[in-house]
Structures are given as C-alpha cells and as structure tokens.
C-alpha cells in the first residue's frame, strides 16, 4: 500500500470546517493542523504504520473515537493457561462496526506474541491470547486504547458461559423439533389425503410407525426443557404452563402409539411435535430477550470496574482492583478519577463532584480531614485518601442493600402471562378429565376411544398461541425501542410501564444534562474568546464548558496548567478565585472560573447545570398522556425550584435523602398511584427499585442502571415518552393476543369435546392461531414514528 493512500483523509463532508483526521471532531487550531489532539495524531500514526489506513475509508460515515489514557490495570484479570499463554476477555466500548472489528483483529495479529485476537461485534467482546506473562496485559490493551476504543475487563465470562449453554440447548431442541415436525407433517399429509380410501390400511400403519420413529426420539429430546420445568413445578406443589404441555404431549404419544398398534385411523404424532416446535420458538424468543438484557447489565458493570492507585509504605504506587482494597490503604486519587472506596482525605485540596452520591450539583471542596465517599469524582488536584471502608461496607454498598430490599417488594409482580397460565392449567386438566369420563360413562365408548377424544382436548387447548402471545410482542417492542436508543433491562418492564399514572423525576442528570454549562450574560465577548482559547487546553470540566461556549476558539499556545488551581498564560490567569487573587468568591450556588488579566478587573464566569434541551416538551407530552409529574431532588431548594419552573413541573421537593425518596414513593404507592421513577444518581437507586417502574439515562451510575427497567441514551428526555407510548401499545397488543388465543380455545374446545377434532383439524387450528398472534404483534412496527434523537 502506498503512502498516499495511508494518509488519505476521510471523504470530505458537508461541513465546511476542517475535521480531525482520526475522530472527525471539528478542528479549531491553525490551518495546517490535521488532528484535534496528540492522542488522535498517535492513533492515526499507529494505524498508518501498520498499513491499515483503509480503516478510515471503511468507517464510511462513522468516526473513530478520541483516545483516552488507560486507567485500569488489566493484569489481575488475566487467566494463565498452560504453555506460558495468557488469556484476557475485554469488553470494548466503541467496537460497533465491522471496520472496527477488522482494524482490531488485523492490528493485534501483527504482534507475533498474540496468538489469538477475536472481536465479537454482537457482544462488543474481544478475546485475547498471547505468549508471555500476565503483566504484558496493559501493553496489549494499551494498544487498543490508543486507537480510541475504551477497553474494560470482561470478568463475567463464567456467567456468560452458563447463559450461552442454556440458549444453545434451546436452539438445538428447536432444530430437532423443527426437523421432526417437518418430516412427520410430510407423512401426515400423505395419510390425510389417503383418508378417502386411496391408501391401504397396511401403508397407513407403516406411515404411522414411521411417524412414531421420527417423533418419539425428537419429543424425548426437544421436550426436555418443558418436562424439567413441569417436574420442578409439580415437586414444589405448584403448577405452571409446562404441566399441561408435558401431560398433553406425553399422552398424545401414548395414545397415538396405541392407535398405530391397533391399526386405527388417527394418530397425533404431528400435532405433538409441531406443538413442541411452536412452544420452543416462544421459549427461545423469551430467553433471548432476557439474555440480551443480562448482557447489557454485564457490559455496564464491566465498564465501571476500574482499579485504584494504592501508595505503599515505601512510597511506591501499585494498581489494585477496587474490590481488593483494605481499610487503612492510602489511595492516590488523580484528577478526574472516581473514588473506589469511602475514606478520609489525608493530603491535598480539591473539589469533589458528589452528584452521583447525594444528587447535589455543586462540587464540594475537600481538605485534609474531609470525609469522601465511593462514587465521588475528583475534579481538582490529586489528593491522598485513607480508606475507612471498602467493598461491602462502603456507602455505595449500603445503597445497594437498600436497592435489594426494595426490589424484593417488586418481585411480587406477576406477569400477565403467568397469571393467565395459573388459572388456565387446572381448567384444561379438568375439561380433559370430564371429557374422558363423559364419553366412557355416558357415551359408552371403549376406554381407548374416550382417551383419544380427551387427548384431542389436551392438544387443542395446549397454550401454543398463549405461549407466543407475550414473547413475540416483547421482541418487537424491544427491537423498536433499541432503534430509539432505549435498552429494556427487565422482561416485565413494558407491562409495568403501561400501567403507570405518575412520573417522578430526579433533577441532576435526569431533568438536566448533569454537566456544567456557561451561564449566559458575559458582556465582554473579547475576554470570553480569550478565556476560551486558554480553557481549550484543559480537560477540566469547567474549562471544557467554557471552551464549548465559544465554538471556534483555537487553543492558545504557551498555556501552563496548575492542577487544582487553574491555567496560566504569561500574566493571564484562568482558574479558582484563590489562584486569580480574588478575595471573596461570590456565593450563588454556582461553579465558577475567574479570569484575571494584568491591569484589568478580574472577570467571573459562572456555570450551572442546564435542563435537557427537550425537557419542557417531554414534560408537556407526559402530561398530555394523563400522567402527573413530580420532581424529587437531593439538591438545594433554590436550584430545584428553578429547574422545576423551567421544565413546567408544579410539584417538587428538595433536599431529600435516598431514604426520604423511597418514603415519598411509598406514600404515593399507598395512595394507589403507580409510579414511574426516572433518575440517575446513586441516591436514586433505592427509589428506582421501589417504584413500580423505572428508567435511567445511560450516563447514570452503574448501580443505578442495574436497578432500572430501561436505560436511554442521548441528551434528549423524549425517549421516556417513547417508552411509555410503546409500552402502552405493547400492552394493548398482548391483551389482544391473549384474547385471540383464548377465543380460539373457546371455539375449538367444544369441537374437541364432541370428538370432531381429527389430527388434520388440530394441525390447521394450531398453526393458524399461532400465525394470527405473531401477525398481530408485528403491527407494533419496528420503526419509531418520529425521527430518532441520538
């Protein structure tokens, strides 16, 4: 490949401004700059040097991501196999297109030490195996990170393995049942068309036995998931949908074998196998929906696991997994790092963002002696923290326990399909039994004829359409929401969301974006431009907010960053009040940056969290749907009142602790309200679990996302409305489907009781009702009505 191709820029886009050759971000710098930052330049260089420059063309309209330095130590996650090989599974954020798969695999394959590099697009997983010690891990993973991907240890491999095995077993059963159903049906069609007398008795009996030879082993194999579940339920003294299925299928086999033996006309082998086939489809869809949700949660957890820097007695630093910290360890918490344990600051001054822990939007300043909690983010200079509680004793773990307690309450919710099944199974058994006794005692039939009719009743009532009614709707609804950037985490989420009548929102990070934005009204445009140019050099959140406010500010040169204080360029300073020599910091609950230039009065930039751009519209849409909206926040009253007013929410409460939020939800539940909680902070997690349904934004704390029923991405609040709309439509369709399935049974059961249901009738009725239910579910559509917001 030639050099000219290597340096080929991405296809020119509509935007007139130049874009970074790696991440595609608009360039602010000088005219001949090609990259937005050193990280992008080196990523581009690595890719070019490996001769993989074609990557940029293959991205098509996507862009690579800006590289961020690796914070995690990966060596503890490595598994060593024999023969000096090490294995590591990674979850790679940003691995979302075929070009990325190609780039990663090709690049890693250039390294002779790496014996296996396989990227999975569906699960965003990268399996690595290399020759050498486990300590090489960060070198290999660092390469992945240097390209702009965000790798995280994928520690849940064992759990994933169990999930995979279960799904695969269902798929194998499905394949066997499908094979048997098709072939038995082929033989059955021949038998049915021979009912006019054109088929001899001997041939028919041969065909019956052939059917038995295919069907019986297939049922014994593919029916295991149902038999197992039925036996478990019966031995626990309960009954479920699988009990009538198992009894029906087994009885159909025995009766049909008897029919074939005595040379009679009707055998139900085809019905029994086809039934299993349809039921397995429903079961597999259901399984996959749950599996995807579990997968999503694991991905979130993996991304959140990071390591902490521990300072040992000699002064050396080591990286340790957060779950292996001990009380008394001294941690070095760098700027921008999230704290992994509760502790006390022993050295350094800084500001901590406690939004995830308390919901408070203004950073707290900390000094030696201050208590800090797991989940806080260090915004300023590096500090040393002595661990006072780690692992199970942290505030974070405490919140998790609150969540678990609240969730136990929710687990009492029984999905509509299960409720129907509980009532349905006994009725079916009773009907079949009465039919049998009725024909034998009153009708005077021999026992085997009566049993045949009773079997027909069991087969026709087998909840084939019933078993498909709910999973199909869930799959269609889940796919549709996924396209709008919404991930459903709980299988019963849609059902619960459809019923809610009251919405409770958290403020910071939910109603608002959860990041500081420059408050308007800076009169001096020239000063703002100069300050933004200086700020563009820093990755501090406030500096970045300032740079965002002036879109075309080019980073100024000669800027020195004083961590925890501010930025300096010659005599011009941008930073904290202390750093800029301002005596009194204004006290209006806002984060601030001061800008001091020689011979001029210092200038103050104030920052505040802003509502999501469509907050007002989304709240109005919720009200339009007959929902009442309420704002509960841990923040101060002034900020909450302002946010509530701006979003058009009348009811609000401020300064609520996590327990108080749960209390408020409990009070609402006692009033008979069904509450949807939307929140993002750790302090919201218990409330999310206590509400009857819950949603959280994808920027939320990991524990919070685990608790929520659904997670939405992007800056817009509109997905919340979309979820409710889809949930309500899905709920209607589920009810329609259950209605259709029951209607079919009601009309077919009398025929079966009268003995008019031959295998042919059973096959037609079963297939048509299943198709009807699937067709009805597809009406939900996989495409959102409005254009998606991302």
């Amino acid at each position, binding site marked *: 490949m030639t050099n000219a191709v290597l340096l080929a820029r991405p296809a020119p886009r509509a935007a007139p401004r130049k874009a970074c050759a790696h991440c595609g971000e608009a360039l602010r710098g000088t005219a001949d700059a090609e990259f937005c930052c050193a990280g992008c330049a080196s990523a581009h260089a690595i890719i070019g040097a490996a001769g993989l420059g074609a990557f940029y063309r293959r991205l098509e309209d996507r862009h690579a991501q800006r590289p961020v330095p690796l914070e995690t130590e990966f060596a503890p996650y490595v598994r060593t196999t024999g023969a000096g090989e090490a294995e590591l599974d990674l979850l790679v954020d940003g691995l979302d297109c075929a*070009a990325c798969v*190609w780039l990663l695999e*090709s690049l890693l394959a250039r390294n002779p030490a790496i014996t296996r590099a396989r990227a999975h697009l569906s699960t965003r997983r990268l399996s690595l195996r290399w020759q050498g010690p486990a300590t090489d891990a960060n070198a290999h993973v660092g390469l992945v990170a240097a390209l702009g991907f965000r790798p995280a240890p994928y520690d849940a491999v064992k759990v994933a393995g169990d999930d995979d095995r279960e799904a695969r077993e269902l798929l194998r059963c499905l394949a066997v049942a499908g094979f048997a159903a098709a*072939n038995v049906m082929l033989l059955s069609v021949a038998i049915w068309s021979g009912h006019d007398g054109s088929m001899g008795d001997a041939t028919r009996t041969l065909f019956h036995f052939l059917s038995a030879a295919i069907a019986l082993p297939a049922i014994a194999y593919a029916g295991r998931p149902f038999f197992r579940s039925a036996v478990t339920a019966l031995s626990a003294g309960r009954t479920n949908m699988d009990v009538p299925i198992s009894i029906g299928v087994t009885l159909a086999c025995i009766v049909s074998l008897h029919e074939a033996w005595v040379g009679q006309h009707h055998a139900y082998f085809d019905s029994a196998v086809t039934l299993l086939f349809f039921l397995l489809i429903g079961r597999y869809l259901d399984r996959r929906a749950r599996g995807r949700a579990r997968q999503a949660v694991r991905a979130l957890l993996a991304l959140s696991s990071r390591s902490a820097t521990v300072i040992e007695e000699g002064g050396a630093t080591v990286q340790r997994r957060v779950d292996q910290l001990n009380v008394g360890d001294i941690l070095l918490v760098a700027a921008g790092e999230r704290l992994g344990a509760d502790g006390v600051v022993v050295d350094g001054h800084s500001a901590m963002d406690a939004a995830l822990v308390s919901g408070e939007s203004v950073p707290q300043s900390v000094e030696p002696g201050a208590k800090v909690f797991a989940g806080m983010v260090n915004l300023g200079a590096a500090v040393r923290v002595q661990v006072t509680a780690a692992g199970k004793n942290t505030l974070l773990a405490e919140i998790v326990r609150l969540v678990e307690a609240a969730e136990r309450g929710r687990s009492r919710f029984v999905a509509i399909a299960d409720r129907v099944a509980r009532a349905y199974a006994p009725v079916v058994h009773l009907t079949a039994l009465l039919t049998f006794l009725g024909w034998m005692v009153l009708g005077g039939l021999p026992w085997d004829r009566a049993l045949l009719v009773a079997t027909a009743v069991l087969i026709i009532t087998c909840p084939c359409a019933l078993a498909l009614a709910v999973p199909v709707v869930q799959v269609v609804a889940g796919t549709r929401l996924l396209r709008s950037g919404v991930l459903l985490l709980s299988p019963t989420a849609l059902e619960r969301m459809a019923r809610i009548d009251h919405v409770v929102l958290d403020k910071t990070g939910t109603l608002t974006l959860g990041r500081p934005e420059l408050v308007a009204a800076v009169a001096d445009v020239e000063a703002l431009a100069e300050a933004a140019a200086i700020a563009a050099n820093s990755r501090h959140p406030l500096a970045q907010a300032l740079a965002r406010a002036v879109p075309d500010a080019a980073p100024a040169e000669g800027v020195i960053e004083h961590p925890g204080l501010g930025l300096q360029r010659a005599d011009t300073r941008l930073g904290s009040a202390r750093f800029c020599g301002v005596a009194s910091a204004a006290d209006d609950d806002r984060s601030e940056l001061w800008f001091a230039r020689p011979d001029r009065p210092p200038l103050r930039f104030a920052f505040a969290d802003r509502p999501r751009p469509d907050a007002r519209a989304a709240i109005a849409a919720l009200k339009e749907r007959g929902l009442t909206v309420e704002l509960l926040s841990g923040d101060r009253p002034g900020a909450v009142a302002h946010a509530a007013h701006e979003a058009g929410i009348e009811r609000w409460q401020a300064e609520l602790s996590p327990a108080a939020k749960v209390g408020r939800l409990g009070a609402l539940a006692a009033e008979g309200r069904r509450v949807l909680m939307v929140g993002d902070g750790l302090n919201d997690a218990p409330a999310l679990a206590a509400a009857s349904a819950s949603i959280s934004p994808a920027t939320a704390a990991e524990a919070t996302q685990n608790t929520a029923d659904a997670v939405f991405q992007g800056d817009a609040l509109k997905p919340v409305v979309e979820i409710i709309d889809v949930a309500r439509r899905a709920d209607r369709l589920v009810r329609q489907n259950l209605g259709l399935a029951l209607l079919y049974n009601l009309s077919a059961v009398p025929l079966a009781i009268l003995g008019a249901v031959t295998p042919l009738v059973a096959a037609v009725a079963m297939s048509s009702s299943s198709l009807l239910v699937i067709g009805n579910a597809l009406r939900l559509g996989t495409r959102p009505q409005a254009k998606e917001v991302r």
Partner: protein
Amino acid sequence: MDSLLILVPAALLLGLIALAAFLWALRNGQYDDPDGAAGRILFDDE
C-alpha cells in the same frame, strides 16, 4: 408402493444431513457473532 421404501428413507436421510449440519455449525460457534461475520467477509482482502 415399492418406491416408498426407497423415497421415504432417502427424504429422511437428506433431512438428517441438514439437521446434522446445523447442529455442527451451532457447536462450532458459527452463530456466536452474526453481525461481525456479516461485515468480516467484506474486509478479508489483505
């Protein structure tokens, strides 16, 4: 009717071969990453 004795086993055999092929593919991990496999085939030129 003699033809049945050949045709029916032949049909079953073909069906079984397809079933075996599917089960082999499943066991071999061919269905693990359908999205990635779809894209990978386009990029194997170098």
